[in-house]
């Protein structure tokens, strides 16, 4: 472990590689986490099927690839399909759990996650898949730092998508309605907002965002029917760390998590890469607890 840290100081350009890789993948984490924050904040539904939506998006991109659709072009198609899928799920299931307690919505979304996993397994088999973008790799610092063009492109797309969603939430009527509903559903209803429709739209939008994230994942990592779980965990870690309704926080936490994973993989070894994610969650929760304890003292 010390050797590895030593290595980072001896060859500083390695840091650049790790930071870049962390940044690129972190941007995708941000997308899925933002979708979760949206559903959580507006509907108070903790969507455990978040990672499965991501993987499903990846498989749709892969499937379109078999019809010679380039994965980047498939991104809008997948987003639309996943939007529809989210809407159907809302009408069929989520509608009935929005007003229920925490455990009902956890159970329902966990059930959705299992069904999606098994359906993907039935449809595509348990083998890992990748969507090939066909882009090359650029190297810097005499080959010590390499950037796969697709990683950069997917980073740019993730930024664009996130920006698009933010503008949509700020400017559009629907975005305003969503924000109003999240502040006070009853007041929003009184003011003539169709909250039912807002909920359906929010859940569907989350599906679309996750689907888009999944397309990016399939181009830079690999997908497999049961790989959704780590993505779900990451989303929860990011949203918990950032706090609800804190969009800059989600972005920072997402990018930070991406880099933290890369560094822990380098310093501690690949076996600790995901342990780091969960470890960070514990640290964040403890930190929150301490903060709240202090807060309580002030009130007293």
């Amino acid at each position: 472990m010390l050797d590895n840290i030593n290595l980072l100081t001896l060859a500083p350009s390695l840091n650049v590689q790790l930071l870049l890789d962390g940044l690129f993948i972190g941007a995708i984490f941000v997308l899925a986490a933002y979708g979760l924050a949206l559903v959580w904040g507006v509907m108070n539904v903790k969507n455990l099927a978040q990672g499965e939506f991501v993987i499903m998006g990846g498989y749709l991109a892969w499937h379109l690839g078999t019809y010679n659709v380039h994965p980047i072009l498939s991104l809008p198609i997948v987003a639309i399909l996943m939007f529809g899928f989210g809407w159907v799920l809302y009408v069929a299931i989520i509608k009935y759990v929005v007003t229920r307690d925490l455990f009902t919505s956890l159970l329902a979304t966990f059930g959705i996650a299992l069904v999606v996993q098994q359906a993907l397994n039935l449809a595509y088999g348990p083998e890992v898949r990748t969507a090939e973008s066909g882009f090359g790799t650029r190297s810097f610092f005499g080959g010590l730092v390499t950037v796969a063009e697709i990683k950069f492109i997917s980073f740019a797309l993730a930024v664009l998508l996130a920006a698009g969603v933010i503008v949509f939430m700020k400017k559009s009527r629907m975005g305003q309605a969503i924000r109003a509903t999240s502040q006070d559903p009853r007041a929003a209803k009184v003011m003539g907002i169709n909250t039912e429709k807002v909920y359906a739209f929010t859940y569907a939008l989350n599906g679309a965002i996750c689907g888009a994230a999944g397309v990016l994942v399939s181009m830079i990592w690999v997908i497999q029917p049961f790989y959704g779980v780590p993505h779900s965990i990451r989303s929860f870690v990011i949203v918990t760390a950032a706090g609800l309704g804190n969009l800059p926080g989600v972005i920072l936490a997402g990018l930070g998590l991406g880099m933290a994973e890369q560094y822990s993989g380098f310093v501690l070894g690949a076996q600790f890469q995901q342990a780091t994610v969960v470890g960070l969650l514990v640290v964040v929760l403890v930190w929150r607890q301490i903060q709240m304890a202090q807060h309580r003292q002030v009130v007293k």
Partner: protein
Amino acid sequence: MTLDILKYTRRGAIAVMGVAAAALLAGAPAQAKVEGDTITLGSAISLTGKYSSNGLDSQNGYDLAAKRINETGGVKVGGKSYKLKVVYYDDESTPARTAQLLERLIKQDEVKFILGPYSSATTIAAAPVTEKYNVPMIEAEGASRALFNKGYKYLFAVLSTSEQYLASAVSLAAEIAEKNGKKPSDVRVALVFENDAFSLDVRAGVLDDMKKFGMQTVIDDKMPTDLSDISATLTKVKALKPDLLVISGHNKGAVTAARQIKELQVDVPIIAMTHCEGAKIVQQFGASADGYLCPTQWAETLSYSDKYFGSAAEYDKLFKATFEGYTNVPYQAAQASAAVLVWKEALERANSFDTAKVRDAIAATDTMTFYGPIKFSPAGNNVAKPMVLRQIQNGEYVVVAPSKYASHPVEWPRKGK
């Protein structure tokens, strides 16, 4: 893609028929191990579930060998010629079910000659059952070292065990080092293995051989089962520049590694990994996969041959002609066929259906098959057949080690970019 779908539906249909047959058998009265002129072998094999595609390959292998033996005079015991028949149950790819079904085969159906299931996990569940009833089992699809350190007396495996998978890559690296005027103990090795039973077995074999040569480990990372990113580990590899990079993590490990080695332009002179073919890395990553060393149990280009199937190439041809939908014959099928050949020869040598005598005859096996030489250690694993190492050269898999069977010289350093 369309072809793939066809293939799967066809295999699916076979699976359905297999299940139906098993269901029919379940209702049939208990059958003796030898009835009239038929010797019954039994197997619980994965016809559905996660191992189903490889399970079907194995079943095809068993069936082809039984058919071939029946066509060429059957099994001669006590001056009489018997036909071989294999009965199957579907274990649904779950070890607990395998154990149950073996109880049923042995107790209820009175089948006393067992062919193994598919996969190490199910074989590990099967072995205690056959051991309990003193019924010999010849298995072809369980390579885990956990099968051969329990002192089982009735378990025999025709395939090479998982520790042997990449050990030959280590000796190859040592040879290359000597050729270049370096000492094998100067060879620096990076190890990247998934944290699961199979991959850790492979790792143990690699470590044993490294110790023999006194090689140094510079990286020893383990991938969690659902990790889809090893770029941090590979960045470390780039910085430390080992002479040999060894990777094993099933198909997903191979895909992840091949993709990220390409993206990060990892330049290691020798890269050895398992599951190259299963993961289709040549099709997916093209020229960047050139030079990878990939172990295999068997290849149709090897110069092995026997009197039943002829050469390995002839087996390959017969298999493709018999079963539709195969573009290349999986080694899983070949080793399954080899297990049936061992049964035939052992029954003839024992010249009896007494399980103890047959067991001793199996233990004394020392034979050559199209799949390779077969000779069992006291632990029951096949010690005669080496693991073959193939290198991807210009998109083709060619045998480069052991040198006795090599069709091409090894390409060093690897050229793939």
